[in-house]
């Protein structure tokens, strides 16, 4: 009934449609059938309970990654390190998942999730502190931390925490008491993701903490004037962002992969950026955006095997969609849409300085 509420969705949906079209053209130029690719995506992502379950599982960490980026952006921070924080959450929760065997599921699973949250928050906290106290730009620090964390987890999974007697670098499997199964066919992790989404939305829209965060993001000087501690909010926002990413990693390990294996979580953090932008930095739109990307991701093997299309086409499509959302003028021009003043574009860079 109230179509105005859907207005903000026009641009991202248009971007996705255009991107999918361009993807189809690329597939065709590359010598494969776009129809075959579309069928493969349908079959792999939506054709039955198993396919839908797989899509939901793929979407789950993406929801967390998207929320992590959004919480940062609201406070004027670009957490490009969700990738690394997710890895930390994934490996620490996996470690707790195989190491602390023998606990009751009621204790073990929450403990593992908590460990993922805390350790995921750690690097983000560091970036927040460096930003607040030393004025080091969070983009640089989190990128550096991404590489450091990647190497660290690679070393852990191939060294101290490696499954004994195996040649592949990976941790032992997580024991049953820490695994996240399904509830009524829905992956538990996805249910958790929905709950957390609502919580983040509530926090941002309805709490004084959310107002502090948004005020710092919108005008740091006014926040300072209004008695909001810009430094404290910066650290808190980064930490929360990292905690969300870490939780995403933990859910991925405990619910989907069943252990930590390097390479399994590649690119999730960057998909988080794509989701945040597709969702126009609104938590309410994170779930649909994550489902869309999750569906594409879930179909990668079917694309390869069924349609003989390199799964990286998904990255191409997402890249184009992101590009169109980031540069709305381009899309408006492409689609002959009138320029609009009401839909504010995302803008939060203040340069390198503090």
């Amino acid at each position, binding site marked *: 009934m109230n179509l105005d509420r859907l207005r903000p969705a026009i641009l991202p949906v248009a971007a996705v449609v255009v991107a999918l079209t361009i993807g189809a053209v690329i597939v065709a130029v590359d010598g494969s059938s776009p129809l075959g690719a579309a069928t493969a995506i349908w079959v792999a992502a939506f054709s039955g309970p198993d396919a839908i379950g797989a899509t939901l599982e793929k979407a789950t960490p993406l929801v967390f990654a998207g929320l992590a980026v959004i919480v940062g952006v609201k406070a004027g921070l670009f957490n490009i390190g969700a990738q690394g924080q997710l890895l930390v959450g994934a490996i620490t929760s996996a470690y707790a998942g195989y190491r602390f065997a023998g606990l009751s599921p009621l204790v073990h699973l929450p403990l593992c999730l908590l460990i993922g949250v805390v350790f995921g928050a750690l690097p983000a906290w560091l970036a927040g502190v460096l930003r607040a106290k030393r004025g080091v730009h969070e983009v640089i620090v989190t990128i550096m931390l991404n590489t450091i964390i990647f190497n660290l987890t690679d070393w852990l999974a191939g060294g101290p925490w490696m499954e004994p007697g195996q040649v592949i670098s990976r941790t032992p499997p997580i024991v049953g008491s820490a695994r996240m199964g399904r509830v009524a066919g829905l992956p538990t992790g996805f249910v958790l993701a929905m709950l957390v989404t609502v919580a983040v939305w509530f926090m941002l829209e*309805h*709490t*004084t*903490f959310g*107002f*502090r965060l948004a*005020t710092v993001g*919108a*005008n740091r*000087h*006014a926040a*300072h*004037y*209004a*008695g909001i*501690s810009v430094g404290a909010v910066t650290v808190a926002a980064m930490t929360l962002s990292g905690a969300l990413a870490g939780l995403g990693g933990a859910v991925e390990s405990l619910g989907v992969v069943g252990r930590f294996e390097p390479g399994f979580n590649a690119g999730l953090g960057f998909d988080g950026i794509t989701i945040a932008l597709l969702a126009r930095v609104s938590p309410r739109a994170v779930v649909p955006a994550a489902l869309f990307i999750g569906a594409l991701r879930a179909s990668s093997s079917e694309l390869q095997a069924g349609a003989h299309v390199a799964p990286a086409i998904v990255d191409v499509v997402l890249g184009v969609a992101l590009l169109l959302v980031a540069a709305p003028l381009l899309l408006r021009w492409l689609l002959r849409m009138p320029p609009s003043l009401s839909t*504010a574009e995302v803008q939060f860079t203040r340069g390198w300085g503090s």
Partner: protein
Amino acid sequence: MSDSEEQPGADVVLEVRGLTKRFGPVVADSEVTLQLRRGEVLALLGENGAGKSTLVKMLVGLLRPDAGEIRIGGDVVRLRSPRDAIGRGIAVVHQHFQLVPVMTVAENVVLGAEPTRRGLFDHRKAAAEVRALSQRFGLAVEPDAVVQDLPIGMQQRVEIIKALYRGAEILILDEPTAVLTPVETDELLRIVAELAERGVGIIFITHKLREVMNGTDRVVVLRDGRVVGDVATADTDEAGLAALMVGRPVVLHVDKEPATPGATVLEIRGLEVDDDRGRLAVRGLDLDVRAGEILGIAGVQDNGQRELVEAICAMRPRRAGTVVLAGREVEGLDVRALHDLGVAHIPEDRDKHGLVGGYFVAENLVLNRFDQAPFSRWGRRDFAAIQRWARQLIADFDVRTPSVYARTDALSGGNKQKVVVARELSRESVLLVAAQPTRGVDVGSIEFIHQQLVAARDRGVAVLLVSAELEELFALSDRIAVIREGRVAAVLDAKSATRETVGLIMAGAAGH
């Protein structure tokens, strides 16, 4: 340039005919017509929002007129960019200097038209040219000084040299005295006379009548985008100009009863505060403000006013000294704690500090109380309460906004300022710190805000008023403290003090 024997005003160098500019439904300039003669100093007088800035932007190619024409030396010209304007000999010294702070005077002057030697930038030649120009016009500017180390008055001269270097024959000075000390202002007027003597046509934009009377040959008055007067300066007086400018006789007089000051609310002793670059800006300042009085702070810009205000409101750490509020040392308290003790603060820059432009009016009305009852409970915001409160304030303070859910940056300057004033005056306070409370605000809003400040005083609030406008200080203050180089140079009774005395103390001339 040397034929100054010629009768000034003989040949027209710049002519504007029927120039009109609209922004949507708003007409910024309507059918503006004026002439500037060689060697003439023409005052362009008008209130904020009268259309002066828009006119200047059209003259230097930053805006295109919707109708009308600009003639230079008799030829109709189309100016598409500042480069076009410079090519035609029109240069402007903006209010905000267009100088690169990290570069030297010489580099700034020659930028865009640099001397070169064997393909490389010829720094020596640039410095020599600047020195020559500086000497010819008596500007005393050192070419190798770095701009960010220079005082404001000197930076302004760099802008003038920049214009001269480019061979400007028409020089537009946009509110040039707003940032100057009285002594620097006199110096500038001398320089302007010197330039005119050598044949430069000068448009001197201002809203200060005194300067018009002292330093210009002719006055064009703008009001609501129209020319409402074009007279020789000698044939008019301040009262006549003021009436033209405002459209009615000006009442800068504020009706107020004599103050009945009570106990000392704010007591500052030996305060030292650093500025943003870590240099001492407030240097051992002492000040008392009593309940029920307005203490005005007079002073040339950048003499420590901003740092003083921010230190009082805990937005800036102090290096030394004591600040006692209602008998209590406030050392270590943060912005919010002071707020809760009853310190209200109208910040100098409403867009930077006072408001979040992207927020609804309602949210800005509770910007520093969002986490207090009734606006939130248990960390959850109560939008209904916020909305009720906002409606109340909008009515009480006559904020013209389409709704409480309008974006604040869509409001006019005067209404934005009313939002800040409403927020700060709508609660119990013991001390009100008002910095430039009417800067960039229309006349109607100025009167309203002035009344509110006096009403606060009459309720027993101690008011500390910082203003760059002497008129405002004299109209409102009960006592005036003159600040110079981070210290209070004198405290005068507003009734007996004269503008001249205050001006002299500001400039450091008198033996205070």
